[in-house]
C-alpha cells in the first residue's frame, strides 16, 4: 500500500517534470541569433572587437545598390575614416540589437562663386532634360561619394555585393576592422551580426526523460489502484504455500515435471557409464553427483 502511494506521488511529480521539460523544449532559446540595427550613412564600420563576439558568425550590411566591404590595417582605416562620415557598430545592447555611434564630418558646401563671367550663353540648346516625374519614377539620385575616387591601396581585401553584403567573420583577420561602403552614395540601411551562442539547455532532455519515467511509474501504480488484484495475489500465495509443503513432506516429483524427467535421465546415464568417452568424465561425474543428490532428496 505504501509503495503504491509513493509511486502515485512519483507519477504526479513526473507529469509536472515532463510538462516543464516539454514547455522548456518548445521555448528553448535559439543557438544562433542575429541582432541588427538600423543605420543611415554611406559608410559602416564594424570594429574588430565586435567581430570577435561572433568568431564563427557573419557580418551583414544592407542598402540599395552596389556595396563594398573592405579590410585594412587599423591605423590606415582610421586615417581613411578621418575624412568621411560613418556609423560605427560598437557592440550588443541585447540579443536582438546592436549598438552604434556616429562620426559625422562637416563638409562646407561649395559656395556660389561670384565670377563675373558675362559671356551670354545664348545657346538655345533644346536638349531634353529629364522631367521631374521621370526622376521621381527612377527614385532619388545620389552623388558618388568622394572617397570612391581616392586611393584604394590601403584596402587589404575587398568584397562586393548588390543591396546586401555578408562577410564571414572568420575571413577577417583578427584585429582588423571591416569597413562597408555604398559605392553609389545611397545610404546603407541596416547592419546585423549573426552570432552562435552557448545556450544552457543541456538539462532539458534529461528532464523530459525523467518526467517520462516517473509518469510511467505513476501510471503503473494507477493501474494497480484501479484494478483489484487481491484474488490473483491470494492464488499465487496459495500455490507457493502448497509447493513448500510438498517439498517438506518428501513427495515424489509430479509426473512430467522437471524433477521427474531428471530422475529418469539419471538412471539411464548410470547404465551407460562403461561406454562413455574419457573426455566426458567430468561431466559424467557431475551428473552422477547431481543424480545422487536427487536420489537422496527423493
Amino acid at each position: 500500500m505504501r509503495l503504491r502511494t509513493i509511486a502515485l506521488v512519483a507519477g504526479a511529480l513526473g507529469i509536472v517534470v515532463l510538462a516543464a521539460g516539454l514547455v522548456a523544449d518548445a521555448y528553448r532559446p535559439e543557438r544562433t541569433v542575429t541582432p541588427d540595427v538600423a543605420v543611415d550613412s554611406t559608410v559602416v564600420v564594424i570594429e574588430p572587437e565586435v567581430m570577435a563576439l561572433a568568431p564563427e558568425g557573419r557580418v551583414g550590411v544592407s542598402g540599395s545598390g552596389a556595396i563594398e566591404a573592405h579590410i585594412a590595417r587599423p591605423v590606415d582605416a582610421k586615417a581613411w575614416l578621418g575624412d568621411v562620415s560613418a556609423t560605427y557598430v560598437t557592440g550588443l545592447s541585447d540579443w536582438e540589437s546592436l549598438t552604434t555611434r556616429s562620426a559625422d564630418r562637416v563638409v562646407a558646401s561649395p559656395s556660389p562663386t561670384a565670377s563675373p563671367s558675362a559671356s551670354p550663353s545664348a545657346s538655345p540648346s533644346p536638349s531634353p532634360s529629364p522631367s521631374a516625374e521621370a526622376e521621381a519614377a527612377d527614385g532619388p539620385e545620389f552623388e558618388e561619394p568622394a572617397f570612391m575616387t581616392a586611393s584604394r591601396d590601403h584596402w587589404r581585401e575587398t568584397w562586393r555585393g548588390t543591396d546586401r553584403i555578408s562577410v564571414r567573420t572568420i575571413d577577417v583577420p583578427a584585429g582588423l576592422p571591416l569597413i562597408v561602403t555604398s559605392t553609389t552614395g545611397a545610404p546603407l540601411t541596416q547592419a546585423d551580426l549573426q552570432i552562435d551562442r552557448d545556450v544552457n539547455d543541456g538539462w532539458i532532455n534529461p528532464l523530459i526523460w525523467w518526467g517520462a519515467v516517473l509518469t510511467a511509474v505513476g501510471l503503473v501504480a494507477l493501474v494497480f489502484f484501479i484494478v483489484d488484484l487481491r484474488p490473483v495475489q491470494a492464488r499465487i500465495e496459495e500455490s507457493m504455500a502448497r509447493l513448500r509443503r510438498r517439498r517438506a513432506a518428501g513427495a515424489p516429483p509430479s509426473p512430467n515435471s522437471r524433477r521427474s524427467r531428471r530422475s529418469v535421465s539419471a538412471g539411464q546415464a548410470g547404465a551407460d557409464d562403461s561406454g562413455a568417452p574419457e573426455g566426458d568424465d567430468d561431466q559424467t561425474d557431475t551428473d552422477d553427483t547431481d543424480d545422487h543428490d536427487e536420489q537422496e532428496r527423493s
Partner: protein
Amino acid sequence: MRGRLALATGVAAAALTLSACTPELPTTPPASSPQQPSALLEEQAARVIDETFAQLEAADSARDPDLLGNRIGGDAARVRAAQYLRAEDDGPSPSELPSSMQAIYVTDVESWPRIMVGVSDAPEESTPVVGLWVQEDVSRPYQLRGWAPMLPGATLPAMPSTSTGASQLLLTDDSVEPSPRQALDDYLELLRQGSDSDLSDRFDDDIYRDRLFSARETLTEAADDADGDYIDTIQPRIEGTFALSTADGGALIFAPVTIASSFSVEDATVSVPSADRPLVDGDLDDKVTHHYRDLVVIFVPGPEAEGRPAVVAADHHLVRVSDS
C-alpha cells in the same frame, strides 16, 4: 483539475528555468593587434605594381608623357618625359623597366609619407632595376617616383618580409653608423670633391661615381682648353629621401639627387650632342648646363656586420639642358 494544476506548475517551472537558459550578453573583448603589421601585403603591392606598369606601357607605346597616370609622378614622370623627347628622331630609347619583380620591400610605418621598393628581374644584358614608390597620404596612391639599375657586382641586403615590413628609419636615426643623413652627406661630398677625396675610403668603390669623375675630368680639360669652366653642382633632395632598416639592422637609403653640370667657354658657342637637343631650353651661347635627376641607393651595413657603406644602385637621368 489535478492535470491542470500539474500543467500550470510545469509551465511555471519551465519559465523559471528558461530564464537561466539564455546566456548572458558577452562583453566586447579588447582589440588585438593585427598579425601582419606591414603597410602593404604582397597582393596589395602586386596591385600597385600592375597598375603602374599598365600606365607606363600605355605612355611608352605612344611616347606621350600625358598618359603617365597617377601611378607615376615626381622624378619618374619627369625623367620618362625627357626620355620620350630624346627618343624622337632616332634618339636613345627610354630605359627598359621590367614589370616583373624578384623582391618587394614594404614598411611597417603607420604614418605618411611611406614607401615601397621593387627590385625587378634583370633585363637582357643589364642589371635588375630598383624602383621607388611613395605614398604621400592615405587618399593618394603609391606613385613610382624614381628608379635606378643595380650597379654591376652590387648586392642588396636581406630585408624583412612583406608580412612584417621594414621599419622606415628617420634620416637622423643613430642606430646605424653612419646615420642615413650622414652617409648621404658624406657620399655627396665625395662626389663634389672627386676621386682624391679622403671620403672615398668610407665607401666601397662604385661605377656610378667613377663615371661621374671620368666625365668631369674630360669636360674640365675641354673647358680649360677654351678658357672656360666646368662645375658640377650636387644637391640632395632631403624631403624625398627615405631609409629602410635591413634585416641585419643596417639601412638602405633611397636618395634623389639633383646634379647640374655647367660648362662654359670664352668667346665661343657651346653645342650639345644631337640626342640632347630636344631637351635644350633656350638659345645656347657660351654656357650650357645639363640638369640631372638621379636616384642613388646606398646600403649602410648593420652594427654587427662588416664592410663599408656602398652604393648598390644609381642612375644618371638627364631631364633638361639650359643655356645658363
